[in-house]
């Protein structure tokens, strides 16, 4: 393997409940085993959400961080120096959820109260869903709530619908009978594994080593669905049913980042721009091009 620069003393990765591959990799210690020969330590830092992972990347607290694709774009647009190098999943982690019998289509949301966390994948999903039927944020009453709080608000009836996120979504679906009335996996923006630009420039060889390990974990996860479920349920303290539901909606088959992902995040970027989360001055396409860097994943897969 190429070692253009001397080795880092340690590599810091995040692990996250929304990135099952990271849980497997952390559990199996393959990266540790591989890097031990170079005397490189591996440090795992938990990330509680895309925005936290970005914060950690931005402050150089981690070298690799897992986020939703749109979140990575947002980060990049705000000057966070990262590169997206790998797709850890194509999840359907978000959908529109309701308990109101009169809401069956996205159009029914007109004038209703909808909970979402701004800037996150569910929010983008909501905006794109609205966009598809010719509605916008102005046609509904968006209630800003953190994901778990959105679920509570939905269950209490404070809001009519909720742009949900797993595992909360799976939980309310299973336990409270909430309905996912609009689903579309293609409007989710994939799970991006990002690396700090500086790290990638200095230690490209180690980026490959990490991705290799990730690949191993991904393959293992596909081959051992039951163990994967056990690991997720144990780590994220989910009931088996919820873990199963979540994994059922997570597609781990294509790791290479590419044009399709770019398209998705550009589309996401456009709605974010319209809703004001991304400033008008930002060239979304440009940012997406800067962000997505498929070379490492292609090398590994190839």
């Amino acid at each position, binding site marked *: 393997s190429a070692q253009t620069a001397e080795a880092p003393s340690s590599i810091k990765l995040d692990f996250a409940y929304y990135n099952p591959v990271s849980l497997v990799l952390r559990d199996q210690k393959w990266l540790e085993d591989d890097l031990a020969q170079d005397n490189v330590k591996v440090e795992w830092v938990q990330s509680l959400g895309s925005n936290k992972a970005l914060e950690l990347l931005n402050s150089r607290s981690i070298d690799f961080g897992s986020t939703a694709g749109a979140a990575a774009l947002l980060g990049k647009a705000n000057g966070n120096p990262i590169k997206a190098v790998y797709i850890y999943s194509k999840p359907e982690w978000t959908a529109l959820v309701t308990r109101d019998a009169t809401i069956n289509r996205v159009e029914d949301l007109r004038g209703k109260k909808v909970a979402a966390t701004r800037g996150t994948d569910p929010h983008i999903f909501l905006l794109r869903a609205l966009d598809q039927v010719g509605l916008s944020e102005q046609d509904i009453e*968006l209630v800003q709530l*953190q994901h778990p709080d959105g679920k509570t608000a939905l269950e209490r009836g404070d809001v009519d619908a909720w742009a949900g996120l797993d595992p909360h979504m799976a939980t309310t679906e299973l336990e409270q009978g909430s309905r996912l009335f609009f689903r579309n996996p293609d409007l989710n923006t994939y799970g991006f594994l990002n690396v700090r630009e500086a790290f990638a420039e200095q230690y490209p060889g180690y980026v490959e080593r990490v991705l290799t390990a990730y690949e191993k974990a991904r393959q293992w996860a596909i081959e051992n669905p039951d163990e994967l479920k056990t690991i997720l349920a144990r780590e994220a303290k989910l009931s088996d049913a919820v873990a199963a539901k979540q994994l059922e909606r997570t597609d781990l088959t294509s790791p290479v980042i590419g044009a399709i992902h770019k398209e998705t995040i550009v589309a996401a970027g456009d709605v974010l721009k319209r809703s004001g989360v991304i400033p008008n001055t930002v060239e979304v396409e440009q940012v997406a091009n800067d962000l997505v860097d498929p070379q490492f994943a292609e090398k590994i897969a190839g």
Partner: protein
Amino acid sequence: MSNFLKTNGSKSAAISTASATRPYRPPKRRRAARHQWAIGLIIPITLLVLWELLSRVGVFPPNLLPAPSAIASTLWSLTVTGELVEHIGITVFRVLLGFLIGAGLATVFGALTGYSRFAHQLLDPLLQALRSIPSLAWVPLFILWLGIYETSKVSLIAVGVFFPVYLNLMSGIQNVDRKLVEVGQVYRLNQLKLIGRVFLPATLPAYIVGLRSGLGLGWMFVVAAEIMGASKGLGFLLVDGQTTGRPDIIIASILLFAVLGKLTDAVVASAGKRLLRWQDSYSSHHQ
């Protein structure tokens, strides 16, 4: 009436004569007061200038810590759209309302548990326990109990305000000089009057500190409050800045918190100073 007390009346001539040879010096406090607030600006301004410089030369990368000028321009653009006024307005409203409610309840409970031993034994342990529950932890409970609208937000802020006011008032009352309390007892003031006419005035210094602490916590709790379904407000701005990763918004809202916090605190502090003019304390002579 004799001339015990020199006023501008008949004997002022005597004073003037005295002044001729020994010019009257105005008390120093006044003179100093005029410039004293400016001294407080030295450090903040120095820090600001340093920060701008270091940003310009690139020591602080803009993605981590944008320059003051960048933040100023963010603030400016928020101002021209009128957004900022809205954010500030609603947050100030929530904090003040929560402050009034929290401080009001704390005054009742603090007076009660400070004054009555039984009330103290009954209520204080529970309140002391609740005191260390973090603002974020209250959020799900408040959503559960009160929903996500203003009631819930204002109540959460009131909770934050409650505890410092309560603690300061309660201990203040317990620390009141027994000698003065006895005077009230001799005049057979009933319990309410004893509290109102002896305990509360005697506790005023501690109470004002409690109010100031409480107000500070009110500003802190507003973030947790505005996590609950707000779409306006400084707390919302801060959290939104965090979720959407915009450091300029984060820092701008922090600065606004600092400035607004300081302003509201100054109001309480100076009201307190006015009320405490009777004090024969170190600072009242010292300044």
